[in-house]
């Protein structure tokens, strides 16, 4: 398993990386390489040149941003899982990061790389959607722009990014009184989600004042389950929740595959929605 030949440049600055991407010659960005290299080894992806951004300090790390977080694109899952600020401000990100793949992958895999890769079964897109995060993108011609997570994922491995853009930062708004939980049922082989759900819930006493639920792994693309809006102003009534969960996945095109037929995927997505919402509701009340 050897990739086709390519040239390699270790970028000394973001500007240099943007310059190389602006050439429009199919150059791809590599950081941890854990999304790109497996595809390249199977020759499913070929590129004339890789630009390595993994050592650009300005793209790495976690800072306070308003009441939330600014996360550099090349921050690894291992760093997120351990980061005190992430654990305090937005524990669901640390929890999900800590459970992605395995130690070795978490040591190299970066959050920005994974989000830009947009695997329809990966976990973090659902978290970003539920938390209404924003992604900062830069290109030589277009400068900086911000894309809402909720508008970023366009299909399986397809995003709102152009080939010339570099994913630089993630802005996660403050959680306020909200609490978030991610629940997934994973493929025994790959560990990817058959269904993964992130629920973010705010409460006023026993009443749900705010709810966002995002679902990954089930459909062609991660999506926000609007049906769960009806939980707002309820006290997390089980019957309402079950009906809303059913509705959330009812009309979906769900492809079956070797890991689970579509009937099971639909069912397990409902279960994941129910469990995520219930737990987030409990956590928000704690």
């Amino acid at each position, binding site marked *: *398993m*050897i990739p*086709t*030949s390519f040239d390699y440049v270790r970028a000394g600055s973001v500007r240099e990386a943007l310059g190389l991407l602006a050439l429009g010659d199919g150059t791809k960005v590599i950081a941890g390489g854990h999304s790109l290299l497996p595809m390249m080894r*199977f*020759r499913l992806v070929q590129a004339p040149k890789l630009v390595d951004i993994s050592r650009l300090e300005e793209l790495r790390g976690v800072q306070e941003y308003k009441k939330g977080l600014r996360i550099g694109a090349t921050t690894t899952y291992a760093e997120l899982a351990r980061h005190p600020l992430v654990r305090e401000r937005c524990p669901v990100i640390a929890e999900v990061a800590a459970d992605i793949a395995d130690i070795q992958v978490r040591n190299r895999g970066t959050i920005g790389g994974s989000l830009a890769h947009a695997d329809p079964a990966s976990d973090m897109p659902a978290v970003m959607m539920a938390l209404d995060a924003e992604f900062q993108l830069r290109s030589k011609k277009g400068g900086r722009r911000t894309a809402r997570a909720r508008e970023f994922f366009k299909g399986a491995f397809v995003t709102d990014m152009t080939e010339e853009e570099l994913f630089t930062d993630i802005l996660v708004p403050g959680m306020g009184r909200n609490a978030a939980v991610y629940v997934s*049922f994973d*493929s*025994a*082989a*790959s560990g*990817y989600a058959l269904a993964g759900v992130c629920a973010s819930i705010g409460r006023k006493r026993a009443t749900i004042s705010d709810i966002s639920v995002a679902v990954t792994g089930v459909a062609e693309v991660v999506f926000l389950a609007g049906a769960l809006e009806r939980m707002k102003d309820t006290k997390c009534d089980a019957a309402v929740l079950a009906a809303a969960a059913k509705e959330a996945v009812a009309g979906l095109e769900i492809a079956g*595959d*070797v*890991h*689970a*037929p579509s*009937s*099971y995927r639909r*069912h*397990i997505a409902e*279960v994941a929605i129910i469990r995520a919402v219930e737990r987030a509701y409990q956590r928000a009340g704690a």
Partner: protein
Amino acid sequence: MATLFGSGIKRREDPRLITGQATYVDDVKLPGLAYAVFARSPYAHAKITRIDVSAARQAPGVIAVYTGADVKDRLVPVPCAWNVPNCDLKIPAHPLLAYDKVRYAGDAVAMVIAETRAQARDAVDLVDVDYEPLRATADPEQATQPGAARLHEEIPDNIGFTWVVSGGDAAAAFQHAEVAVSQRIVQQRLLPTAMEPRAAVAQYNRGSGQLTLWATSQNPHIHRFLCSVMLKLPEHRIRVIAPEVGGGFGSKIPAYPDEALVSFAAMELGIPVKWTEDRSENYKVTIHGRDHIEYVEMCGTRDGKITGIRTRVYAGLGAYASTAAPGIPTILHGLVYSGSYMIPNIHGTIYGVYTNGTPVDAYRGAGRPEAAYLIERLVDIFARKIGMDPIEVRRRNFIPKDKFPYTVATGLIYDSGNYEAALDKALGILDLKAFRAEQAKARKDGRYLGMGLVSYIEICGLGPSQVAGAVGFGGGLYDSAIVRVYPTGVVKVYIGASPHGQGEETTFAQIVASEFGYPVENVEIIHGDTDNTPQGWGTYGSRTTAVCGSAVKVAALRVKEKAKLLAAHLLEANEADLEWKDDAFRVKGSPDKAKGMAELALMANVAWNMPPGMEPGLEATAFFDPTNFVYPFGTHICTVEVDEQTGQVKILRYIAVDDCGPPINPMIVDGQIHGGVIQGIGEGLQEIAVYDEEAQLVTGTMMDYAVPKASQMPHIEVAHTITPSPVNPLGVKGCGEAGTIASAACLVNAVCDALAPLGITHIDKPLTPARVWAAIQKAKGATP
């Protein structure tokens, strides 16, 4: 030293393995080494209408490119070596490189040799082949139906053999039975997944005419023989070396085209050539296991007596007959249908079916797990039908311990056993009463707990050779050892078997050291090189300790016998007056007059003062051919909780009580059990090789084939009973496959017990959450 045999000493092979100093095949480096990569068919079934390798030949670094046309008249197709008699066996030619037609996705069409791995890989993309796709199927039942795709012109119905096992009168038994149950069972295809992919390095010396082949082999002598056939090269000009081998589980028994082609290239080009499989290539071309579709029945009386078992089995062979393939679902499967029980009437019809899948051959347990699975599933289904505790049904049908040796209806003679003792021990560990109480309480709370139990037997220690001949096995099933004592007294033992993780460098040293009164460090075990080991038949079928270990013991005793004569001579005593005591030959009554093995070794090797007529030197060779198979047995128990909502199965406890005779090294025996059990749980819970409608393997990487991970697997509680076998001087049975034979059935029995309140009696493995959930929905009358 008296305690060395039976002691769990640390393994002697480990220091090199834990420090990165071991040499596996892909680690072999030779000057001028070139690399081979194969171009393989993307289609499962297609005519080849054109192959153009001209661009590949021009690619940077490429030394040569070979196609089927280049080799078909110069090399012999891959042989099948198990010609099971009386079953109308048809073995189609298996060309080393396909030239007219490809029959499975992965069939090789060209071999590229280049200076580097990367260059060879790049050039494979330039091999240009036109295919005319044909209809394909990987389903062994479908493949026998009228109108199915035909793989081999000479086999119109794709049926490679029809083998019948029969004992008693099953038809009459079923006709008159009080109760009969039946079940369709699918025993899915599995991917063996030895962690080390296969590899080969070939070097040919044109001056001496000697070929050296480093190969990932469980049986280098068999590979030498089969390569000699394929290459048309005399056996004495081939040296096969199996250096460190990273697991096999059956997948490194067969002859494959690859190692012969690499050898051919090395001979043609006069340079050494290496080939190493990628994992996804391994999943496509290295043999698979199981692949049965079975219609099985059991009959008996209302008071729990089993009177008959009947089967019809479609056993997938894949596209070609792999080396041992015909023997697996027949001799190693159908003959074992009596299990641990006295079943007077047995009938089985087994169809070996060619399909457009990867060839199927021996995978851990090979035929016997499939047998244990169907028997032990049927016992539970039968017990449910008559409303009797399945444990009681087992007790009522066990072969009693005083009936051994016992001849079952299929004609096998079981060597020794005490099945009830193992069952009782396992139940004692579980605390059955407490579990049933917990289960009853859980059911009231709407939770599904279950207990599965399996009392298996295994036929292993493969020998004797006379039986091998009678059942068409293309080789012997004895094994061999040379025990060579050096002048300083230290010992090297050269063995015919070829361990690859099972620890015989330690256990065999324990055998010899115990015999000689030595510390184990004085004994080295040498294996895996056909140029310095005696003819042997390899490591598989849980045979190495029972057969080759016995050869080691016999050779050691021969050495000791000679040493005793020499001791008598040197001590000026009668041989009859000597006794072996406290690690030396001593004159009875005068224990100070003594000679230990080290001193005798020196005297024998310098030969200054030998008894009249005695040859110098101290070594012996033994070829041990057992008088019968050995029959390990045991009872495993598994308890589970099934999540009704998600279909997830959680294993609560797994208890394994196995009887493999007296353990030489209990630590190693337990390790074999652990590994075997987990492989069977993987089979029961999550492993499945899936082909789509076009016979494409869709679980072609580890992203899709669920090799068990540590976090998915339970802790195993291991215990033993010890019943020696009378058929070998060590009294040992086998332990390598036992765990796998028991555990898949045990898990499925547990889940079916858990879901019994829903009326579920069977779910085909693997019990993925999706399958369990679907079964629950179906039982509840919902459409999943």
